[in-house]
């Protein structure tokens, strides 16, 4: 039987069942019962029924609403509503299934939650305050990190420099070994091996011309080096017809992680072979005028290069094994050496490169000067070309070096100038670190820059918002007479021209006048209604006082609010002596009231009515 919908007749049947009641009387009873309740409700009475509850009619105030379809504002009139308040007994009976349940205070949570909420509230504010400071703080942290990095780099640079000396020492000790080769061969070997460094130095010099004020490099030499490096690149690239720098870049990216050890061994083996005889040559070559003389030689060398590359490859491979042993020994010693020899080495080496490249000087001078980026690209080409000559493994190993060196040029330009090419060669056991550090530095610098940008943007936006707020405030003011005065002042301060001031003045004055007028026109009107003696000439109707009748009910019925009963009382002063005790049977005049006086929606009217009520009920 649960969830069934029962009608009155079904209730009647159930009522009659098992009882000494006729169905007819039961039906009639139900009918009369509800009609009685209805009548009582109509009269504003409450009906209390034992075992059930209370019926009463409740006044629902008129309210504004919006038509969902049209968006139009509509007023829902106030109305009476029959409400049923079940007796406690009935309530408990109905709620029996859940009666065992009781409200539970959530203690563990209730202890924490308020605090949390408070904390949240507290946290919110400081956060808001710290928000503008946040970028500053982050920036400061980044700055510190960068400082640390720089100091690290400095500390690293000194051991590197020292390593050169060990190199030279080792080289000098090993000098006699690879003497089989002719000078030409050596120069050839130098060109492939030195090019990456020389090229990278060229890139350094080009990318950071301001920083190149070290004693070793006079301005002329630097420029010459540039040309030389570029020439070498050009030369080799043209000779071997190798692809452009893009491929080299890709290769570097891919292979930079691979084969650092091989790179080490390879370069060192080359050094051991090359340097001994190279140095004397270089010292000669360091003087520029001699370079020109050697051009013819270089041409010959270049021609021979191709022929001898195959030989070199073979030699390099064999040398690798030796080199591995050397590196192990050297790496320990390197850090203890002095820097003095390095500079000496640097110049000669560079000059040897210069020799090689001088062939194409006339063609490439301008391009080099004008297009530093081209040079850096060609660096990579050069690296590639060099590597193309070597075995595949060696190719890969050289590229990371070049890449690292190029990258380094940007980050620590000062050191680059002071470091020699040979020392760079020796440095490759640091390859991993160095390779990573620039990237790391770049990212940090990028973050710092971003932070700055956001910081700037934040304040920019904030300024704009402030301005907008000001503008909005001004607009708001514009709607009132106050605004008129304000704008007048503002305009006074802003516009020096007298005419505009005058016009704004007049506008402002007009605006104020109008508003004052409206206020005045309203105020006396309202005051008149409340203050003027009320005369109740027109009547809506008359009501007869019966049992249960109340003035407030009449007021509610005719004026929309019970508070306005005072006016009915005023209209019936003669008949009613005590408003609390209105005699039954008399006819009550219901006067017609000014809509402004008895407006249930107006707080003013209600307050005035209440004031009157408190007077009359003294």
């Amino acid at each position, binding site marked *: *039987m649960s*969830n069934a919908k*029962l009608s009155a007749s079904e209730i009647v049947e159930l009522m009659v069942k098992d009882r000494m009641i006729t169905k007819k009387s039961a039906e009639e009873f139900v009918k009369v019962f509800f009609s009685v309740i209805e009548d009582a409700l109509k009269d504003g009475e409450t009906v209390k029924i034992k075992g059930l509850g209370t019926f009463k009619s409740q006044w629902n105030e008129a309210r504004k609403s919006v038509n969902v379809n049209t968006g139009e504002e509509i007023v829902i009139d106030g*109305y009476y509503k*029959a409400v049923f308040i*079940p007796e406690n007994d009935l309530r408990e009976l109905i*709620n*029996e299934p859940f009666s065992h349940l009781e409200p539970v205070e959530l203690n563990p949570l209730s202890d924490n939650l308020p605090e949390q909420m408070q904390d949240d509230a507290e946290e919110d504010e400081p956060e808001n305050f710290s928000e503008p400071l946040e970028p500053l703080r982050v920036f400061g942290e980044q700055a510190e990190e960068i400082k640390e990095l720089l100091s690290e780099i400095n500390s690293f640079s000194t051991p590197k420099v020292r390593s050169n000396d060990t190199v030279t020492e080792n080289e000098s000790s090993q000098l006699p070994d690879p003497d089989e080769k002719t000078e030409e061969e050596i120069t050839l070997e130098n060109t492939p091996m030195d090019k990456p460094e020389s090229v990278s130095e060229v890139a350094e010099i080009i990318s950071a011309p301001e920083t190149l004020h070290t004693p070793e490099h006079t301005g002329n030499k630097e420029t010459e080096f540039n040309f030389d490096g570029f020439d070498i690149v050009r030369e080799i690239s043209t000779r071997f017809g190798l692809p452009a720098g893009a491929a080299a870049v890709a290769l570097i990216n891919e292979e930079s992680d691979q084969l650092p050890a091989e790179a080490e061994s390879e370069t060192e083996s080359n050094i051991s072979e090359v340097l001994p005889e190279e140095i004397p040559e270089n010292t000669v070559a360091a003087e520029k005028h001699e370079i020109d003389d050697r051009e013819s030689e270089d041409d010959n060398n270049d021609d021979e290069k191709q022929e001898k590359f195959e030989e070199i490859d073979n030699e390099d491979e064999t040398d690798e094994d030796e080199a591995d042993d050397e590196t192990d020994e050297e790496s320990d010693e390197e850090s203890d050496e002095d820097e003095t020899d390095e500079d000496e080495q640097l110049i000669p080496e560079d000059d040897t490169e210069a020799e090689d490249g001088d062939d194409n000087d006339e063609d490439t001078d301008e391009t080099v000067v004008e297009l530093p980026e081209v040079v850096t690209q060609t660096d990579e080409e050069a690296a590639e070309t060099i590597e193309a000559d070597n075995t595949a493994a060696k190719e890969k190993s050289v590229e990371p070096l070049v890449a690292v060196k190029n990258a380094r040029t940007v980050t620590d330009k000062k050191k680059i100038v002071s470091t020699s090419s040979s020392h760079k060669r020796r440095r490759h056991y640091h390859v991993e670190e160095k390779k990573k550090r620039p990237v790391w530095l770049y990212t940090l610098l990028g973050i710092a820059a971003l932070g700055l940008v956001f910081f700037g943007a934040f304040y920019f936006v904030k300024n704009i918002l402030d301005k907008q707020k000001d503008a909005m405030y001004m607009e708001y003011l514009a709607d009132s007479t106050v605004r008129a005065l304000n704008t007048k002042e503002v305009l006074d301060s802003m516009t020096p021209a007298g005419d505009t001031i005058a016009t704004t003045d007049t506008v402002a004055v007009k605006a104020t006048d109008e508003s004052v007028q409206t206020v005045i026109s309203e105020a006396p009107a309202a005051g008149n209604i409340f203050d003027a003696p009320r005369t109740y000439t027109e009547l809506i109707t008359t009501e007869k006082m019966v049992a249960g009748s109340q003035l407030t009910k009449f007021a509610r019925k005719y004026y929309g609010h019970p508070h306005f009963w005072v006016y009915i009382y005023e209209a019936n002063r003669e008949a009613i002596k005590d408003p609390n005790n209105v005699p039954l049977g008399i006819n009550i005049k219901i006067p017609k009231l000014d809509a402004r006086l008895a407006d249930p929606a107006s707080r003013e009217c209600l307050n005035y009515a209440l004031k009157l009520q408190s007077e009359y009920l003294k």
Partner: protein
Amino acid sequence: MNNKELISNVASKMNLPKNEVKYLLEAFTETFRNQLKEDNSIGFQGFGSFEIRKKEERLSVHPLTKVRTMIPPKLVVSFKQSSVLKDKLNVKF
């Protein structure tokens, strides 16, 4: 209007003795309660309908002490007036 007044009112209208009306009323309230208890909804034409509604459990937070209380679900009687009754109550004068 209390129970007594109601009975006398109904009795005068039905021309029945009060004790009989009282008996009828008791019978009515008893069936009414029983039916409601069985979760039946009862509709009286022209007056309104009674039904049982379940109020779901809810979490209430005391605005001052912030004490959170779990209010258990409960069943309540709800009465909805019929539109006929509403019109009768709001007759325009």
